[in-house]
């Protein structure tokens, strides 16, 4: 997983979140999940994608702390290293 870059993770996270409802151009690192109307069920689905793609396992307690898209990207990148 050493080849995973933050840019790749960001692109994958944005693409996945956009498939849940919000427009892709609305999603930035600073967007909060609340303003994107992304809830805990969506985050579980995001975690499944992340695990499939990067082998990073995110549990409920990991997700609880996440407020913004950037928080999620940073967590995934740090776990993938």
């Amino acid at each position: 997983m050493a080849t995973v870059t933050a840019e790749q993770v960001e692109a994958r996270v944005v693409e996945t979140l956009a498939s849940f409802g919000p427009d892709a151009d609305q999603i930035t690192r600073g967007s909060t999940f609340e303003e994107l109307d992304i809830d805990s069920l969506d985050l579980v689905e995001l975690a499944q994608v992340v695990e499939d793609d990067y082998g990073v396992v995110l549990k409920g307690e990991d997700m609880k702390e996440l407020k913004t898209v950037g928080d999620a990207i940073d967590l995934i990148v740090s776990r993938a290293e």
Partner: protein
Amino acid sequence: MKRRVVITGLGAVTPLGVGADPLFERWAAGECGILDGAGACTDFEPSELLSVKEVRRLDRFSQLALVAAGEAVADAGWDEELPVDPFRAGCIVATGIGGIQTVQAQLDVQRERGAERMSPLGIPAQMSNAAAAAISMKYGLKGQAFAVASACSSGAHAIGSALRMIQYGDADGVVVGGSEATLTTFGFGSFNAMQALSPTGISRPFDARRDGFVMGEGAAVLVLEEASVAEARGATILGEVAGYGSTSDAYHLTAPEPSGEAAKRAIELAMSDAGVGPDEVDYINAHGTSTQLNDAAETAAIKRALGEERAYKIPVSSLKSATGHLLGAAGAAEAVVTVKTLQTRVIPPTLGYEVPDPECDLDYVPGEARPLVMSNGRPPVALSNSFAFGGHNVALVFRGPAS
């Protein structure tokens, strides 16, 4: 004195199109929505009518219900602002089977990729109350919201339950209906194994050649209000839910009790609840599934409940001749067309009815639509029947507007 319950909004998504008007008008024009042995909602494009989030989160049965509810709520003028205290606005959406498409898809995921890859949306999408929950959330209905299930009587049971909820004083308005989306390998395989489906793929209720029902899908929703609330706000009153009766055969899991005794009692209870006698019933919207057993037992029940002499004079027609059997949505769709029949004074025909069966000898409105004839100047009255696997019988009485 019972609180009166009026209808102020109608909505439907059926094999005849998206909308209550296409449903009624196309049926009345003799058009059939059945293709290749199934009544599919081919005009329904979820992505055009619902948000990305709604489409992803909802099983097809809830998508159909949410669109039908949107039409009914707008028709009633409830979409801008609720005319009643939100905690006194209920929502009952029936389904016979629930989110079976979700169940099938998630079982595929479980088998192919393992249980840990199943979607967190699996249960909330398949649960039978998912449609009621989605409608309650979208329109801010904070009173009682739930599903009812009684197979093919579900939609009628929902309306009866909503009627009582308002009459009893637990709610002042209820968004009520039924929904079903069972055109899946499970649905076809299972009903076929029972030999319940028509091998010819033709729905012709009461005809001697009938050979089973044609499975359909769809949703229908009505907005019911306590009469003084609707009158005070100047709402257009489309009709009244006047009576409800329900019994069970306690006889067989799938076959109706042939004498129609319990079904007769349901009809009698509904007429008594509405305070109408046999001479006041101007039209019967039949359950009329196109199975040998149902259509004969229903005919027997109608004759016993209204008396043979009167029963022969009442026009009886079945929507299932045009849409197939919408299962848990059937009673609600039939309520919508019954209200429209009373409103427009046009009785749509039983499509395809040509060859009489000695066991089915009522006036099934063959050929084409005809005017509703009333015995005197009072508002017209109709009966709508629903009967189900499990032996559940429901009769509803509707009263049309005075003019």
